[in-house]
């Protein structure tokens, strides 16, 4: 019986790769497309509702629509439904604002046991914090480029 560590790392990686189970990328993409589309359709419905029944225009309806979607996400996350939907929907539920809402809300619920300040407050943006940071930073970079190009008269 050979008991020396004869299997080198490289040959092991080959064996492991043969048994590897790939993510079903095509299926995930199709699910993401339809779930993401469904959420956007609901969002559009909410927008239309606000414009039809309340004093909103196409320019101003974005904020109340986002808030409503986040509110629905909060309920679905709190009742433990959202993560089950997300397992099927993948990027479909992660990319829209609902995914961002879920990241914040789930962290807030999770760390409630450590108190409001150090628990909820300190951990709420644990996952979503980097989205805010890099979102703001890339907006800054794009704005900077636009300003420079405007100064030079390129655009």
């Amino acid at each position: 019986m050979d008991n020396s560590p004869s299997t080198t790392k490289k040959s092991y990686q080959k064996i492991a790769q043969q048994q590897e189970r790939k993510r079903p990328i095509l299926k995930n993409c199709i699910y993401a497309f339809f779930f993401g589309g469904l959420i956007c359709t609901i969002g559009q419905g909410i927008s239309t509702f606000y414009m039809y029944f309340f004093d909103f225009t196409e320019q101003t309806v974005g904020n109340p629509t986002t808030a409503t979607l986040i509110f629905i996400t909060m309920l679905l996350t709190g009742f433990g439904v959202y993560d089950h939907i997300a397992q099927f929907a993948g990027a479909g539920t992660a990319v829209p604002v609902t995914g961002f809402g879920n990241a914040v809300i789930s962290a807030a619920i999770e760390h409630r046991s450590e108190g409001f300040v150090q628990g909820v407050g300190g951990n709420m943006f644990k996952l979503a914090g980097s989205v805010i940071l890099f979102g703001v930073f890339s907006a800054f970079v794009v704005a900077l480029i636009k300003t420079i190009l405007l100064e030079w008269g390129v655009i």
Partner: protein
Amino acid sequence: MLRGKQTWEFENRPTIISTGITGGPFEAKGNLTATFDQLYNDLRLEQNSFEQAHQLLLESACQHALRKSNITKEAVQFLIAGDLINQITPTSFTARTYQIPYIGTFSACATSMESLALAANLINSNNANYVLTGSSSHNAAVEKQFRYPTEYGGQKPPTAQWTVTGAGVGLLANKGDGPKVTSATIGKVVDMGMTDPFNMGEAMAPAAIDTIATHLMDRGIDASYYDCIITGDLAEIGRSIALELAKQKNILLNTDTFLDCGLMLYKKDQQVFAGASGSGCSAVVTYGHLINQLNDKKLNKILVVATGALLSPLTVQQKQSIPCIAHAVSIENGGR
């Protein structure tokens, strides 16, 4: 007595005289429900936090083991146990409750067999008459530490595993009726450079085979000596890799008798991806289903090889590979 390189043989036959098994709501829908002493309907076990629920799982498992044996906790010399939570607090807090002299252990998901090996050694060397040993894990408490918040909607890949909510405890004695712990092999840390924390089976399989190979060589026996060789939580991918590695090392493992605790605990329709994992996984299946099978003489000689991935969320983020370990303990009826 040391046999070979890293195996202890226990000539005084430490006996597992009773066990205690507890589980959560997901386990209550599983495949081995009849083997649990207590199943909780609430994931939080009506506690204030998942961590406290984790502690209660172990506390009540200990209680069931003591109750079934009619041994008082004062008669127990040592508690040897561990879990996956930082600083193994659920286990240490249980030791606070029970006031039994305590040795805390950690080998990630291999903690159950590390603890059993040490407990058997203490009994075998007459350094204890009764030792309580076991391991536990809680899905939400462990996920919180190693992954994302429980309700976070992250899509898990098919290679991921499901952390067991449960505790398994065994009471070892120097005499009495029950299956005997006959030997134990303490594993080496094996690292094949795997880095995917969502594919633990792949990282742990080489450690399992290394320990199995060493165990068989140290004891001078064939894999066919055992009715079953049961790994801790390799799950589907790890198990198929382990079979492939065994073939390369000329260890004849029979696919029917090479089992995995991670594939036994849940039903097929429960979404656990590649299989179950967690330090409670091997403990619950070993002290529950497997000990029952030994007591019923359906199995007579088994080797339990618990596997553990010794990573932390920090080492994963710092792009370190995943070191793994496996500890093997043989449990037999009547001894060798």
